[in-house]
Protein backbone atom coordinates (compact mmCIF):
# COMPACT_ATOMS: atom_id res chain seq x y z
CA UNK A 1 0.00 0.00 0.00
CA UNK A 2 1.32 3.43 -0.87
CA UNK A 3 -1.09 5.91 0.69
CA UNK A 4 -1.56 5.70 4.45
CA UNK A 5 -3.97 8.58 4.83
CA UNK A 6 -5.21 11.93 3.52
CA UNK A 7 -6.02 14.84 5.85
CA UNK A 8 -8.27 17.76 4.93
CA UNK A 9 -8.52 21.02 6.86
CA UNK A 10 -10.39 24.02 5.52
CA UNK A 11 -10.63 22.44 2.06
CA UNK A 12 -13.99 23.00 0.34
CA UNK A 13 -16.79 21.63 2.55
CA UNK A 14 -14.36 20.35 5.23
CA UNK A 15 -13.76 23.17 7.72
CA UNK A 16 -12.77 20.68 10.42
CA UNK A 17 -9.73 18.39 10.35
CA UNK A 18 -10.78 15.21 8.59
CA UNK A 19 -8.61 12.11 8.27
CA UNK A 20 -9.27 9.52 5.58
CA UNK A 21 -7.38 6.36 6.54
CA UNK A 22 -6.44 4.45 3.43
CA UNK A 23 -6.00 0.70 3.53
CA UNK A 24 -4.87 -1.85 1.05
CA UNK A 25 -7.60 -3.00 -1.26
CA UNK A 26 -10.83 -1.20 -1.99
CA UNK A 27 -12.23 1.67 0.08
CA UNK A 28 -15.69 2.91 -0.84
CA UNK A 29 -17.08 6.35 -0.03
CA UNK A 30 -20.86 6.77 0.19
CA UNK A 31 -23.26 9.52 1.21
CA UNK A 32 -26.08 11.77 -0.07
CA UNK A 33 -25.81 14.21 -2.98
CA UNK A 34 -23.67 17.20 -2.13
CA UNK A 35 -22.28 15.80 1.12
CA UNK A 36 -18.61 16.10 0.08
CA UNK A 37 -17.49 12.83 -1.57
CA UNK A 38 -16.11 14.41 -4.76
CA UNK A 39 -14.52 17.12 -2.65
CA UNK A 40 -12.29 14.41 -1.16
CA UNK A 41 -11.31 13.40 -4.70
CA UNK A 42 -10.54 17.05 -5.50
CA UNK A 43 -8.40 17.25 -2.34
CA UNK A 44 -6.21 14.38 -3.54
CA UNK A 45 -5.79 15.94 -7.00
CA UNK A 46 -4.94 19.26 -5.37
CA UNK A 47 -2.28 17.89 -3.05
CA UNK A 48 -0.81 16.01 -6.03
CA UNK A 49 -0.17 19.43 -7.59
CA UNK A 50 -3.21 20.25 -9.74
CA UNK A 51 -2.86 23.87 -10.87
CA UNK A 52 -6.01 24.32 -12.94
CA UNK A 53 -8.97 25.38 -10.77
CA UNK A 54 -11.39 24.16 -13.42
CA UNK A 55 -10.09 20.61 -12.96
CA UNK A 56 -11.29 20.97 -9.36
CA UNK A 57 -14.71 22.39 -10.29
CA UNK A 58 -13.64 25.86 -9.12
CA UNK A 59 -13.48 29.22 -10.91
CA UNK A 60 -10.47 30.53 -9.03
CA UNK A 61 -8.11 28.48 -6.86
CA UNK A 62 -9.28 30.53 -3.89
CA UNK A 63 -12.66 28.78 -4.26
CA UNK A 64 -11.23 25.62 -2.67
CA UNK A 65 -10.90 27.35 0.71
CA UNK A 66 -13.91 26.69 2.93
CA UNK A 67 -16.25 29.61 2.12
CA UNK A 68 -18.50 29.48 5.16
CA UNK A 69 -22.18 28.64 5.59
CA UNK A 70 -25.21 30.47 6.96
CA UNK A 71 -24.04 29.59 10.46
CA UNK A 72 -20.27 29.30 10.13
CA UNK A 73 -17.82 31.91 8.92
CA UNK A 74 -15.32 31.15 6.21
CA UNK A 75 -11.68 30.29 6.94
CA UNK A 76 -8.52 31.86 5.57
CA UNK A 77 -6.50 28.79 4.60
CA UNK A 78 -7.06 25.42 2.95
CA UNK A 79 -4.67 22.56 3.78
CA UNK A 80 -4.44 18.99 2.50
CA UNK A 81 -1.86 16.45 3.65
CA UNK A 82 -1.01 13.17 1.92
CA UNK A 83 0.92 10.60 3.99
CA UNK A 84 2.67 7.83 2.09
CA UNK A 85 4.44 4.66 3.11
CA UNK A 86 8.08 4.56 2.07
CA UNK A 87 9.51 1.43 3.67
CA UNK A 88 10.73 0.27 0.29
CA UNK A 89 12.33 3.67 -0.31
CA UNK A 90 10.59 3.89 -3.69
CA UNK A 91 10.31 7.63 -3.03
CA UNK A 92 13.52 9.71 -3.23
CA UNK A 93 13.39 10.60 0.48
CA UNK A 94 15.29 8.65 3.16
CA UNK A 95 12.46 8.11 5.66
CA UNK A 96 9.86 5.36 5.98
CA UNK A 97 6.94 7.76 5.95
CA UNK A 98 6.63 10.73 3.58
CA UNK A 99 4.19 13.54 4.33
CA UNK A 100 3.30 15.96 1.54
CA UNK A 101 1.28 19.04 2.46
CA UNK A 102 -0.18 21.85 0.39
CA UNK A 103 -1.62 25.09 1.76
CA UNK A 104 -3.40 28.00 0.11
CA UNK A 105 -4.09 31.26 1.94
CA UNK A 106 -6.85 33.64 0.97
CA UNK A 107 -4.14 36.21 0.37
CA UNK A 108 -3.15 34.04 -2.58
CA UNK A 109 0.01 32.73 -0.95
CA UNK A 110 0.79 29.05 -1.44
CA UNK A 111 2.96 26.66 0.56
CA UNK A 112 4.24 23.20 -0.30
CA UNK A 113 5.85 21.09 2.41
CA UNK A 114 7.52 17.67 2.42
CA UNK A 115 7.93 16.27 5.93
CA UNK A 116 7.18 19.76 7.27
CA UNK A 117 9.98 21.36 5.22
CA UNK A 118 8.99 24.04 2.75
CA UNK A 119 9.82 23.04 -0.84
CA UNK A 120 8.96 24.28 -4.31
CA UNK A 121 5.99 22.91 -6.23
CA UNK A 122 8.44 21.38 -8.66
CA UNK A 123 10.08 19.30 -5.90
CA UNK A 124 6.72 18.05 -4.71
CA UNK A 125 5.74 17.00 -8.22
CA UNK A 126 9.05 15.21 -8.67
CA UNK A 127 8.23 12.97 -5.73
CA UNK A 128 4.96 11.95 -7.28
CA UNK A 129 6.50 11.31 -10.66
CA UNK A 130 8.63 8.64 -9.07
CA UNK A 131 5.62 6.91 -7.54
CA UNK A 132 4.17 6.38 -10.99
CA UNK A 133 1.19 8.46 -9.98
CA UNK A 134 2.30 11.57 -11.79
CA UNK A 135 2.87 9.60 -14.97
CA UNK A 136 -0.52 7.98 -15.07
CA UNK A 137 -2.92 10.74 -15.99
CA UNK A 138 -5.76 8.41 -15.14
CA UNK A 139 -5.05 7.57 -11.51
CA UNK A 140 -7.89 9.96 -10.69
CA UNK A 141 -11.10 9.53 -12.71
CA UNK A 142 -13.49 12.39 -11.83
CA UNK A 143 -17.25 12.16 -11.69
CA UNK A 144 -18.89 12.29 -15.10
CA UNK A 145 -15.56 12.00 -16.91
CA UNK A 146 -15.57 8.27 -17.65
CA UNK A 147 -17.67 8.75 -20.77
CA UNK A 148 -15.29 11.43 -22.08
CA UNK A 149 -12.50 8.86 -22.19
CA UNK A 150 -14.17 7.51 -25.34
CA UNK A 151 -15.91 10.64 -26.50
CA UNK A 152 -12.76 12.56 -27.37
CA UNK A 153 -11.82 13.38 -30.96
CA UNK A 154 -9.30 11.02 -32.62
CA UNK A 155 -6.50 13.54 -32.05
CA UNK A 156 -7.31 13.84 -28.35
CA UNK A 157 -7.37 10.10 -28.07
CA UNK A 158 -3.84 9.82 -29.33
CA UNK A 159 -2.81 11.96 -26.36
CA UNK A 160 -4.07 9.22 -24.09
CA UNK A 161 -1.80 6.75 -25.86
CA UNK A 162 1.16 9.09 -26.00
CA UNK A 163 1.07 9.54 -22.26
CA UNK A 164 1.16 5.77 -21.86
CA UNK A 165 4.10 5.47 -24.24
Amino acid at each position, binding site marked *: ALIKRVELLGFKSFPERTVVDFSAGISAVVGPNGCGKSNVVDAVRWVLGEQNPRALRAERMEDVIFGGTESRSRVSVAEVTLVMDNHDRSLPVDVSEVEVRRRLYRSGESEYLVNRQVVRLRDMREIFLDT*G*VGKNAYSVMEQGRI*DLLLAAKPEERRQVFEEAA
Partner: protein
Amino acid sequence: SSTLFRQAFDDIRTEFQAMFRRLFGGGRTELKLTDPDALLESGIEFYAQPPGKKLENITLLSGGERALTAVSLLFALYRVRPSPFCILDEIDAALDDENVGRLVELLTEFSADTQFLVVTHNKRTAAGASHLFGITMEEQGVSRLVTLRLPASERAEERELAEVH
Protein backbone atom coordinates in the same frame (compact mmCIF):
# COMPACT_ATOMS: atom_id res chain seq x y z
CA SER B 1 9.35 7.87 -30.22
CA SER B 2 7.33 6.57 -33.10
CA THR B 3 8.39 3.10 -32.02
CA LEU B 4 7.45 3.80 -28.43
CA PHE B 5 4.05 4.95 -29.58
CA ARG B 6 3.56 1.87 -31.72
CA GLN B 7 4.51 -0.33 -28.78
CA ALA B 8 2.12 1.43 -26.42
CA PHE B 9 -0.61 1.29 -29.04
CA ASP B 10 -0.22 -2.46 -29.51
CA ASP B 11 -0.06 -3.13 -25.76
CA ILE B 12 -3.17 -1.08 -25.07
CA ARG B 13 -5.01 -2.67 -27.95
CA THR B 14 -4.30 -6.13 -26.58
CA GLU B 15 -5.29 -5.24 -23.03
CA PHE B 16 -8.37 -3.34 -24.19
CA GLN B 17 -9.66 -6.45 -25.93
CA ALA B 18 -8.96 -8.59 -22.86
CA MET B 19 -10.68 -6.20 -20.44
CA PHE B 20 -13.64 -5.75 -22.77
CA ARG B 21 -14.21 -9.47 -23.11
CA ARG B 22 -14.04 -9.85 -19.35
CA LEU B 23 -16.53 -7.10 -18.61
CA PHE B 24 -18.91 -7.98 -21.46
CA GLY B 25 -18.55 -11.72 -21.16
CA GLY B 26 -17.40 -11.93 -24.77
CA GLY B 27 -17.47 -9.80 -27.89
CA ARG B 28 -14.51 -7.99 -29.40
CA THR B 29 -12.92 -4.60 -29.92
CA GLU B 30 -10.84 -2.88 -32.56
CA LEU B 31 -8.51 0.06 -32.27
CA LYS B 32 -7.68 1.63 -35.62
CA LEU B 33 -5.15 4.27 -36.51
CA THR B 34 -6.82 6.76 -38.82
CA ASP B 35 -3.49 7.27 -40.54
CA PRO B 36 -1.10 4.31 -40.07
CA ASP B 37 1.57 5.95 -42.20
CA ALA B 38 1.72 9.12 -40.13
CA LEU B 39 2.06 7.50 -36.72
CA LEU B 40 2.95 10.65 -34.85
CA GLU B 41 -0.09 12.52 -36.05
CA SER B 42 -2.66 9.82 -36.58
CA GLY B 43 -5.92 9.86 -34.70
CA ILE B 44 -7.41 6.74 -33.16
CA GLU B 45 -10.83 5.17 -33.77
CA PHE B 46 -12.55 2.77 -31.37
CA TYR B 47 -14.91 -0.01 -32.41
CA ALA B 48 -16.70 -2.36 -30.09
CA GLN B 49 -18.89 -5.40 -30.57
CA PRO B 50 -20.83 -6.59 -27.54
CA PRO B 51 -21.53 -10.35 -27.68
CA GLY B 52 -23.92 -11.27 -30.47
CA LYS B 53 -24.17 -7.75 -31.85
CA LYS B 54 -22.45 -6.09 -34.80
CA LEU B 55 -19.12 -4.31 -34.68
CA GLU B 56 -19.82 -0.63 -34.67
CA ASN B 57 -18.33 2.72 -33.79
CA ILE B 58 -18.67 3.25 -30.06
CA THR B 59 -20.98 6.22 -30.63
CA LEU B 60 -23.77 3.78 -31.47
CA LEU B 61 -23.58 1.84 -28.21
CA SER B 62 -25.99 2.33 -25.32
CA GLY B 63 -25.12 4.59 -22.38
CA GLY B 64 -24.19 1.66 -20.18
CA GLU B 65 -22.29 -0.15 -22.93
CA ARG B 66 -20.20 2.97 -23.53
CA ALA B 67 -19.49 3.33 -19.82
CA LEU B 68 -18.40 -0.30 -19.61
CA THR B 69 -16.25 0.10 -22.73
CA ALA B 70 -14.65 3.19 -21.18
CA VAL B 71 -13.95 1.21 -18.03
CA SER B 72 -12.35 -1.50 -20.21
CA LEU B 73 -10.04 1.11 -21.73
CA LEU B 74 -9.25 2.62 -18.33
CA PHE B 75 -8.20 -0.73 -16.90
CA ALA B 76 -6.26 -1.53 -20.06
CA LEU B 77 -4.29 1.68 -19.38
CA TYR B 78 -3.78 0.56 -15.78
CA ARG B 79 -2.37 -2.74 -17.04
CA VAL B 80 0.06 -1.04 -19.42
CA ARG B 81 0.92 1.79 -17.03
CA PRO B 82 0.16 0.68 -13.47
CA SER B 83 -0.64 3.22 -10.79
CA PRO B 84 -0.09 2.47 -7.09
CA PHE B 85 -3.48 3.96 -6.27
CA CYS B 86 -6.60 4.77 -8.27
CA ILE B 87 -9.43 7.08 -7.33
CA LEU B 88 -12.71 6.46 -9.15
CA ASP B 89 -15.68 8.78 -8.75
CA GLU B 90 -19.02 7.17 -9.66
CA ILE B 91 -17.81 5.21 -12.71
CA ASP B 92 -20.70 2.78 -12.10
CA ALA B 93 -23.47 5.37 -12.51
CA ALA B 94 -24.73 4.09 -15.88
CA LEU B 95 -24.33 0.36 -15.21
CA ASP B 96 -27.02 -2.21 -14.45
CA ASP B 97 -26.67 -4.63 -11.52
CA GLU B 98 -25.01 -7.43 -13.46
CA ASN B 99 -22.38 -5.15 -14.98
CA VAL B 100 -21.68 -3.59 -11.58
CA GLY B 101 -21.03 -7.11 -10.32
CA ARG B 102 -18.44 -7.72 -13.04
CA LEU B 103 -16.83 -4.36 -12.35
CA VAL B 104 -16.50 -5.27 -8.67
CA GLU B 105 -14.82 -8.58 -9.58
CA LEU B 106 -12.34 -6.70 -11.74
CA LEU B 107 -11.62 -4.14 -9.02
CA THR B 108 -11.10 -6.96 -6.52
CA GLU B 109 -8.55 -8.62 -8.76
CA PHE B 110 -6.62 -5.38 -9.39
CA SER B 111 -6.79 -4.45 -5.70
CA ALA B 112 -4.13 -7.05 -4.91
CA ASP B 113 -1.52 -4.52 -6.17
CA THR B 114 -3.51 -1.29 -6.29
CA GLN B 115 -5.20 0.82 -3.65
CA PHE B 116 -8.66 1.90 -4.77
CA LEU B 117 -10.86 4.67 -3.48
CA VAL B 118 -14.25 4.47 -5.15
CA VAL B 119 -17.05 6.96 -4.68
CA THR B 120 -20.44 5.37 -5.31
CA HIS B 121 -24.20 5.47 -4.77
CA ASN B 122 -24.44 1.79 -5.72
CA LYS B 123 -24.98 -0.70 -2.91
CA ARG B 124 -23.32 -3.56 -4.79
CA THR B 125 -20.15 -1.57 -5.32
CA ALA B 126 -20.12 -0.55 -1.66
CA ALA B 127 -20.65 -4.17 -0.66
CA GLY B 128 -17.59 -5.16 -2.70
CA ALA B 129 -15.29 -2.86 -0.73
CA SER B 130 -13.14 -3.97 2.19
CA HIS B 131 -13.49 -0.59 3.90
CA LEU B 132 -16.49 1.72 3.89
CA PHE B 133 -16.54 5.45 4.65
CA GLY B 134 -19.67 7.57 4.86
CA ILE B 135 -19.78 11.33 4.52
CA THR B 136 -22.61 13.26 6.12
CA MET B 137 -23.65 16.89 6.39
CA GLU B 138 -25.62 16.85 9.63
CA GLU B 139 -24.64 20.48 9.98
CA GLN B 140 -25.65 22.07 6.67
CA GLY B 141 -22.71 22.78 4.42
CA VAL B 142 -20.18 21.05 6.72
CA SER B 143 -18.86 17.62 5.72
CA ARG B 144 -17.97 14.97 8.26
CA LEU B 145 -16.42 11.56 7.62
CA VAL B 146 -17.70 8.46 9.36
CA THR B 147 -16.02 5.06 9.21
CA LEU B 148 -18.75 2.49 8.67
CA ARG B 149 -17.81 -0.99 9.77
CA LEU B 150 -18.30 -3.57 7.06
CA PRO B 151 -20.61 -6.13 8.64
CA ALA B 152 -21.02 -9.74 7.63
CA SER B 153 -24.63 -9.53 6.57
CA GLU B 154 -25.81 -7.40 3.66
CA ARG B 155 -28.94 -6.31 5.51
CA ALA B 156 -27.02 -4.60 8.30
CA GLU B 157 -24.98 -2.86 5.65
CA GLU B 158 -28.01 -1.57 3.82
CA ARG B 159 -29.25 -0.23 7.12
CA GLU B 160 -25.97 1.61 7.65
CA LEU B 161 -26.06 2.96 4.11
CA ALA B 162 -29.63 4.05 4.72
CA GLU B 163 -28.48 5.90 7.84
CA VAL B 164 -25.87 7.76 5.86
CA HIS B 165 -28.23 8.61 2.97
